[in-house]
């Protein structure tokens, strides 16, 4: 078991290392000279060259990469070109904000999605199953900004019951914060709902058709006991893993939703950095997203293995 976990962690570290190289290399491909970006069009070439030298961007890419990684290891994410300030505080604030949004989205989405999936499976083939399935499938394909636009129109403008901006007034309490996050959270939750619902449905149907369920029914156990004890326990295990692996999609959705609802999170920070061609900031945000994803998948993988002894012995993973 310990060997398996160590192997997973090792693989995640290798993946992270490759990812950092890819990100750094792409960052270097951004057009425009950093010195020129900071100083503007009116600066003299000598001034630009001097600043480039001070920033160290005139050195070889290998040296720059080594320095970048060394600094990262010491917790120094560098200095943003567009804000002219250390990057770390920006990342911390944005990450905390995004986590709040993601948490509200999960709390809205996961229980609803699992319940719908299980109900659809129990009523498999009936009209309620078909409507839930088609509804989930439709949500699955809807880009977050489209569902966001619909939500803004319905709840923000026509019914006028929820705020259309995600950022609460300064000094707002936790309840007001959550109130402002409801619309963007639903927009994010829509796509997730589709995935999780389908997984829960598929898992439940598989468990319903299994030998152990048949045995339980033949033993004469009441339906309720069979469903709770035998079906759901086995059906929800894969669903939980899917919830964790969906964190990648969730972060992708964050970028769009945070932009649409004017929310200062890791997604909108990435977007601003890309627009401003601020590559130290862009590298930092993208790497942060990568780390969050890898950690989440790692935890999901290990939890799943711990809960499911059948998978502990290697396999093709």
């Amino acid at each position, binding site marked *: 078991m310990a060997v398996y976990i160590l192997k997973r962690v090792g693989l995640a570290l290798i993946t992270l290392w490759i990812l950092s190289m890819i990100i750094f290399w792409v960052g270097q*491909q951004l057009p425009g000279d950093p010195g020129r970006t900071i100083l503007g069009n009116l600066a003299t070439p000598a001034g630009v060259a001097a600043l480039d030298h001070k920033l160290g961007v005139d050195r070889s890419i290998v040296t720059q990469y080594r320095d970048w990684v060394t600094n990262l290891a010491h917790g120094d994410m560098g200095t943003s070109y567009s804000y002219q300030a250390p990057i770390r505080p920006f990342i911390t604030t944005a990450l905390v904000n995004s986590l709040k949004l993601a948490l509200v989205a999960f709390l809205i989405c996961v229980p609803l999605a699992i319940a719908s999936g299980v109900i659809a499976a129990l009523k498999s083939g009936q009209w309620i199953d078909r409507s839930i399935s088609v509804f989930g499938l439709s949500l699955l394909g809807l880009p977050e900004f489209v569902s966001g636009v619909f939500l803004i129109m319905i709840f923000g403008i026509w019914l006028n019951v929820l705020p259309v901006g995600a950022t609460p007034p300064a000094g707002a309490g936790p309840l007001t914060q959550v109130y402002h996050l409801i619309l963007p959270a639903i927009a994010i939750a829509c796509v997730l709902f589709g995935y999780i619902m389908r997984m829960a449905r598929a898992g439940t149907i598989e468990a319903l058709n299994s030998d152990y369920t048949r045995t339980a029914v033949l033993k004469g156990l009441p339906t309720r006991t069979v469903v709770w004890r035998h079906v759901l326990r086995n059906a929800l295990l894969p669903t939980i893993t899917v919830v964790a692996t969906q964190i990648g999609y969730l972060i992708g959705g964050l970028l769009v939703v945070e932009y649409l609802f004017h929310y200062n999170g890791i997604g909108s920070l990435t977007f601003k950095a890309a627009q401003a061609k601020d590559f130290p900031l862009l590298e930092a945000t993208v790497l942060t*997203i990568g780390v969050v994803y890898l950690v989440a998948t790692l935890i999901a993988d290990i939890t799943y293995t711990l809960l499911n002894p059948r998978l502990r012995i290697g396999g093709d993973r």
Partner: protein
Amino acid sequence: MTAVVDDAPGSGSVDSGAAQVRREQWRELRKSKTFLVGATILVFWIVCAVIGYRVVPHTPFEQDLLHTNASPSTQHWFGTDQIGRDVFARVITGVRVVLVVAFLATVLGTVLGTVLGLITGYMRGWVDETISRFVDALLALPLVITAVVVIAALGPSNVTVTVCIGVIFAPLIARTVRTAVIQERELDYVTAARLRNERGPYIMLFELLPNVLSPVMVEFTVRLGYAVFTVATLSFLGFGIPPPTPDWGDDIADNISVVTAGYWWEVLFAAGAIASLVIAVNLVADAIEKVTDE
């Protein structure tokens, strides 16, 4: 495709069986309600993409500056936008860019992914390991984030968006193909081919590929839906197709600020159009997946 394979010695009987299965699946598909609804909407949008520019009553670029922000009327069915352009014309013609870019990106991704999947699945060993690590690294980032970073580096254009989405799809599709190939390569017909001294590339293309086409086709339709999703999202973020080409995502981003003033038609119809297109593609993909599963 089948004709080529039928000529290959030893695999003839297997493949005519596969052709039979495919005909059977097609018959099954035509009976599926999900497929019919999805396909009807999809065909509608394809027709719009082809002849849209010729049938709309106003051109999507014409600015009626005396009637800006006009609400829907007999003159302008879906109203006009902030600079007096006909929203109906822009919605109908806006599908062309999305559909063409999404389709080409998916084709590119499927071809690259299938090649990659065949190689990694058939070769195994260090080639497989190395490529898999790179794929893992790329998949650690959500598609939209990767696309935004790459497009920020290269500048937005139809070609950049297409290539970018295609290249990111490749590893995803490669994974599915690789799994299918790993199952197939242990079968007798591959061993037989190897004993006949057929070379690696020949085995991959003419023995393995025809037998993994089903998962490839499912992947293609599923990815197509996701490509539409991504293209629309990128253009909404301003990283897509440069204006003034009519484009749903871009039009929504331009007009979302005036929705609070009550000009809902400038956004609602484009949003509805995107929704109907992605849902249609997903319905078709879902139906195909179900049929090939059975």
